[in-house]
């Protein structure tokens, strides 16, 4: 059989649309999130903290855990609280089974689309370096689960607005609170549909009936897992938007409406 060259196919449909959309969607996110992470400012507004900057281990905002930028940080290196933590959710998405399949197609044309010719003859798949490292995914899941709890806590904090006059905190809900809350729900729907979680929570067993609790949990994870791709995109969009929202409010470009 003669090998087909890149893009060669008998397919008639517009097979390139989906990979192009994935390419554009992921590239936009990568460019925006990298830019936002390097800013190191405008990442908090009132009680809101951008999800790219949470947890803020060191930094100048009131959300910081351990105070301002640490002394040991090399002077030549740019500092931003986001750079300290963003590798964890970034690694989680990078090694996610859904995204892997999607970017192998859209960024590496391996294959560009189903039944379409490829640019390279050689192929190693995920069984040798570097892609064998994708197998760490479950560890990134453990980290992502911690982040989820922290982001949920940020939503709670986003419900307490300090009164400028008295300095007292009042319960309230602003549009920003809702943006952050929706973001956590979407991130949760994405993370809780993780294939590694599905395996760890019950998929590894052949007799689930022996562990009824696992069986129930396995079903729940399965519900999210069936739409993993959808949750992956919704949550990617929402996390970027949540940062944008806080950023634009902080810059004074957008006004945050207090609902009550």
């Amino acid at each position, binding site marked *: *059989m003669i*090998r*087909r060259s890149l893009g060669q*196919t*008998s*397919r*008639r*449909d517009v097979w390139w649309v989906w990979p192009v959309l994935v390419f554009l969607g992921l590239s936009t996110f990568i460019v925006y999130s990298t830019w936002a992470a390097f800013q190191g400012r405008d990442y908090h507004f009132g009680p809101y903290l951008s999800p790219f900057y949470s947890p803020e281990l060191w930094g100048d905002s009131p959300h910081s855990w351990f105070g301002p930028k640490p002394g040991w940080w090399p002077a030549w290196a740019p500092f931003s609280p986001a750079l300290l933590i963003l590798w964890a959710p970034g690694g989680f998405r990078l090694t996610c*089974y859904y995204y*892997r*399949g999607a970017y*192998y*197609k859209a960024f590496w044309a*391996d*294959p560009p689309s*189903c*039944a379409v*010719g*490829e640019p390279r*003859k050689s*192929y*190693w*798949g*995920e*069984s*040798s370096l570097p*892609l*064998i490292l994708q*197998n*760490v*995914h*479950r560890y990134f899941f453990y980290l992502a689960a911690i982040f989820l709890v922290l982001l949920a806590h940020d939503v709670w904090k986003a419900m307490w607005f300090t009164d400028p006059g008295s300095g007292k905190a009042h319960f309230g809900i602003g549009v920003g609170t809702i943006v952050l809350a929706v973001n956590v729900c979407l991130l949760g729907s994405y993370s809780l549909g993780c*294939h*590694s979680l*599905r*395996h760890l929570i019950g*998929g*590894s*067993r*052949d*007799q*689930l*009936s022996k562990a009824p609790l696992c*069986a129930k949990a396995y079903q729940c994870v399965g519900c999210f*897992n*069936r739409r*993993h791709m959808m949750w992956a995109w919704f949550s990617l969009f929402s996390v970027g938007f949540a940062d944008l929202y806080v950023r634009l409010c902080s810059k004074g470009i957008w006004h945050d409406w207090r609902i009550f």
Partner: protein
Amino acid sequence: MVQQQATFSIWRGDSAGGKTVDYTAEVSEGMVVLDAVHQIQATQANDLACRWNCKAGKCGSCSAEINGMPRLMCMTRLNDLDLTQPVTVEPMRAFPPVRDLVTDVSWNFRVKKKIKKFKPRKPDNPDGSWHMLQGDIDRVQEFRKCIECFLCQDVCHVLREHQMYEEFIGPRYFVYTAALEMHPLDTEDRLPELKQSQGAGLCNITKCCTKVCPENIHITDNAIIPLKERIVDRYYDPLKKLFRMFRPKSEG
């Protein structure tokens, strides 16, 4: 659909080579691609070779590539295709052509023989029978729907583009292995060869197999990824390894 004419570009040839030939057929309401191929065979090209059996999407014989996508000829309705252009009908690319639309799929049967057989635990009852709960075999039953049409094997780029027939068993046999590995009664261990000689790591989860499966088996999500996760448990996860050192006997 009223009676109309449509052009079919059908690949004609054998292992030495071939080309597509255009045929015009009368098409009418309710026809599938296999009907058109049969009509062409009956009226214009008596020597046109094609394989079929049930015409109901259940025997898995009539696999071909229609407008470039691997599909069953008997389940592809003409009113779902654009008939203003010629419809291309080609044999599966991943397997050696025998003649026209017929390919030699025997490699698949050789692969299947290499997979360790079902090995049930000792019977639960004196009469040699077992107890199983429906809930425990739900997962496996999805895999049993497979009709061995080999469309997933055909579309998988590891076979189709990279021709790794020696080191990769293909999605159909990951489904088969998953059905055995996840079976509540089975005691056999197939993970070592799955990782080594059968190439589970070569699948890059691009899901083309899932897309073409006429039985809608979620090949990648429900068979391949869970097998990959079991391989991670055994070979790549340091915590699991540590855990096993202290608890050497694990559930079968």
